[in-house]
C-alpha cells in the first residue's frame, strides 16, 4: 500500500477534499493508496519520512529536506477533469515508479 500525506493550511478542510479525491480516483485506477490529511504547520520531518508521496495544495517550504516525491495537488480542488486529471496522471506515474 502507498501512503500519501496531503496538506493544506487550516480552516476549510481542503486537504480532506484532496484526500477523498485521490483515494477515489486511485482506487478506480487500481492502486492501493491510503491518504492522511493534515495541516502544513503540524508536519515535521519524522512524520514526513513515514510517507511514500507528499501532496500539498501548492509548493510548500519546510525547514527540513522533504524525502518523499512531491505532487502538487491543488488543481484537484477545482473538481473539473481538465484541472484534476493531470495531477492524477502525475500521481499515478509516481506510484508506478515506487513499484511497491
Amino acid at each position: 500500500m502507498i501512503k500519501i500525506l496531503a496538506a493544506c493550511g487550516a480552516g476549510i478542510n481542503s486537504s480532506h477534499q484532496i484526500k477523498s479525491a485521490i483515494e477515489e480516483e486511485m482506487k478506480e485506477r487500481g492502486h492501493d493508496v491510503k491518504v492522511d490529511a493534515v495541516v502544513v504547520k503540524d508536519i515535521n520531518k519524522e512524520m514526513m519520512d513515514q510517507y511514500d508521496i507528499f501532496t500539498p495544495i501548492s509548493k510548500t517550504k519546510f525547514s527540513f529536506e522533504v524525502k518523499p516525491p512531491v505532487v502538487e495537488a491543488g488543481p484537484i480542488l477545482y473538481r473539473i477533469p481538465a484541472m484534476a486529471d493531470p495531477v492524477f496522471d502525475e500521481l499515478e506515474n509516481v506510484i508506478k515508479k515506487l513499484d511497491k
Partner: protein
Amino acid sequence: MEALKSYFDKELIFIEDAKDQNEIFNRIGKILYEKGIVNDKFIDALIEREKNYPTGLDLKPVSVDLPNAAIPHTETEYCHRKHVVFVKLEKPVLFKNMIAPDQELEVTYLFFIINNEKDSQTNILSELMGFLTAAENVNKLEKLQNKDEIYRFLTNNIN
C-alpha cells in the same frame, strides 16, 4: 448537513471599491467584528493567513474570459459563526494564486469563508467550487448590480 446557501446573509453581500487586498480585508473585517461574527484578532489572522496560504482562484481554466475569485479565510478560532460573505469589487485587486503562489491574479469576487467549527461537515469549499466552475454563474454575477439580486441569485444557485 447544513446547506451552504444558509451561510449567505442579505446583510453580508457587498459591492465595494478598494485599492488593494489590505483595504478590503480591513473594511470587511471591521464590519464582521462589529456584527459580532468574528473576534478582534480576525483581521490580522486573515492578512497573515493570506500571505502564507493565498486563496486566489484562477478561473481561466473554466473559461478564458472569466473574472477571478478568491476565498479568504482564517483558522476557526477567530470566528464565532458560520457564514459566507460575498464581495463584488468594482475594480479587481491582486491576490496570489492558491495553487501557484508565485502567480498574481486580478480578483473581482471574494467569498470570505467564516467557519467556527474545525470538523464542520459542510464541505464549503467543494460547494463553492461547484458554483464557480460553472461559467454561466460567474457571467451572471457580472451582470447583477444590486445586493438583493445577488443574494437571490447566490441562494438560488448554491445548494
